């Protein structure tokens, strides 16, 4: 018992081997099984709940994706194998929505990461009003996205009375109708604003977790701020940055509020991402089969990309121990 808690503290792998190896008496085996259930037991409620609530609907989505099912057509449902998948890959709007999804996610995550890192570095020092500044910087993450979406589109980006247009007007730039002329840019701008605090918090956590003796040693060795940051701080921050990118991407790739409320995917379908386009096909086009097929493709693509990303992160986790 005490050995397995000790090894548990070190990591998973060591504990795995110890539990169930060589030939044992039935009694020992029963004890081992009981022990196994005692270990697994606390996990089961969460696991079972998650499987039921997420996997049953997803299996149904796969089933729907193989059927022709348009609520507008009276002939009902038929089984069409992979026709929906063929159709969506021929659909240029689907391809542009996929591209928009990538642009929005990559653009937002990296811009927010850079800005968040900058803010975190500025906050990681003692100065007058540090707490207030941090409070100001965290706030966009706390405000309801539905609220900020509408306020960005009408209050800040409006071509005639928007605040941003007034600001750029001070520099002699003619007013821009952001949400219709630069729809993707507008959406990304609002998203970067919302997600920068999240990145900042994670990077700040990383900065504050730095061992202070290492920093002092670097200072004693006469390393300047730049050198210390590049060779001491940045490598240590890497894992925090990777995690920030992964978590940020998971949420940003699902962006719906901003697109629905700022541009409605428009003009036309210029700013539709996959979640919005799928929603449109399902709830406005009533084409359940095709919407489901798009959902399945999205899931497969994100899981493939995320598997690689997670491997990368898990590797950097292991490297530490």
């Amino acid at each position, binding site marked *: 018992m005490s050995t397995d808690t000790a090894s548990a503290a070190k990591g998973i792998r060591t504990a795995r081997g110890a539990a169930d190896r060589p030939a044992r008496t039935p009694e020992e085996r029963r004890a081992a099984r009981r022990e196994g259930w005692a270990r697994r037991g606390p996990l089961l409620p969460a696991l079972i709940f998650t499987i039921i609530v997420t996997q049953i609907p997803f299996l149904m989505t796969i089933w729907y994706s193989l059927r022709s099912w348009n609520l507008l057509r009276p002939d009902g449902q038929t089984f069409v194998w992979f026709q929906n998948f063929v159709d969506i890959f021929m659909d240029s709007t689907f391809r542009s929505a996929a591209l928009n999804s990538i642009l929005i996610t990559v653009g937002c995550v990296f811009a927010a990461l850079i800005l968040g890192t900058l803010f975190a570095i500025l906050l990681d020092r003692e100065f007058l009003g540090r707490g207030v500044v941090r409070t100001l910087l965290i706030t966009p993450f706390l405000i*309801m996205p539905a609220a900020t979406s509408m306020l960005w589109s009408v209050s800040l980006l409006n071509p005639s009375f928007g605040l941003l247009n007034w600001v750029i007007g001070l520099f002699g730039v003619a007013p821009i109708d952001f949400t219709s002329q630069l729809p993707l840019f507008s959406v990304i701008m609002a998203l970067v604003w919302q997600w920068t605090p999240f990145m900042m918090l994670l990077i*700040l956590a990383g900065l504050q977790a730095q061992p202070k003796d290492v920093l002092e040693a670097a200072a004693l060795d006469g390393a300047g701020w730049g050198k210390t940051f590049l060779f001491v701080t940045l490598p240590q921050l890497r894992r925090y940055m990777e995690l920030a990118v992964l978590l940020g991407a998971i949420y940003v790739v699902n962006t719906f509020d901003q697109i629905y409320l700022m541009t409605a995917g428009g003009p036309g379908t210029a700013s539709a991402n996959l*979640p919005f386009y799928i929603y449109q096909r399902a709830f406005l086009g009533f084409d359940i089969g095709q919407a489901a097929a798009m959902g399945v493709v999205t899931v497969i693509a994100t899981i493939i990309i995320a598997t690689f990303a997670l491997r990368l992160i898990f590797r950097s986790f292991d490297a530490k121990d």
Partner: protein
Amino acid sequence: MSTTLTAETAPERGGAAGAAPVRRRRTGSAGPRLLTVLTWLLALVFFAPVAWMVATSFKQENAAASTPPTFFFEPTWDQYAAVLAQNAGPYFLNSLIATGVSTVLVIALSVPAAYALSIRPVQRTSDVLFFFISTKMLPVVAVIMPIYVISGRLHVLDNVWTLVVLYTSMNLPIAVWMMRSFFQEVPGEVLEAAQMDGAGLMKTLRSVLIPMVTPGIAATALICVIFAWNEFFFALNLTAAKAATVPVFLMGTMTSEGLFLAKLSAASVLASLPVVLAGWAAQKQLVRGLSMGAVK
């Protein structure tokens, strides 16, 4: 909500004292002071949209949508009165139930699960962790049709408890990940000591582990509260008159009556206030929580 607010009373971050000598060296001369001014400027620019929203909420409609923008005006509570007159209560109640109950459920489910995944690991831990996070990669739009159909069959459309279940499943994976990292942080020796003193599993959990990860639970709960309170997509598609939450109310403020910018701003301030206050109160916990756990 109470979980996040109590977090305020937790002790301050320990590391700051040790870091003081290094930091003090950089303050005092002109460079750092300039950096402080720059930091303040950046923060104010970044915060400007929020300030503008709050300012707009105290204007009359014609001042809210004027060219050029109005900076000086006589503040009025009219817009708040107008929003409250619209019977916002039920929406807030629904949001409160959906957020509060789902957060409690998430914590109740994720703490034991994270415990199993860290202190007493089951086999294939990383597979289980990957499974949890992979459900977050499932775009919610990909499952909304089946959820709609199932909810219809079970007669739970436009029911706030449906949102409770969905918000629980939405936040559970992240909570399991976060809580696991907090448990990983607990030194093995502490547990051994508890065992030598003859403490059983429940006793160890209650008197040793839970107190040690309380900041983690607070941070996790806060994250869940933020995402649940702000959730829009499920609420938009699965609720109508009875179970609609605050984001849906907010959208109704805009679309049903055209553009009333000042009123929309007032509604937005009211809608965001609970989470903003909770987040402000528990922000130390949030940073500390992430630094303790997130990547360990």
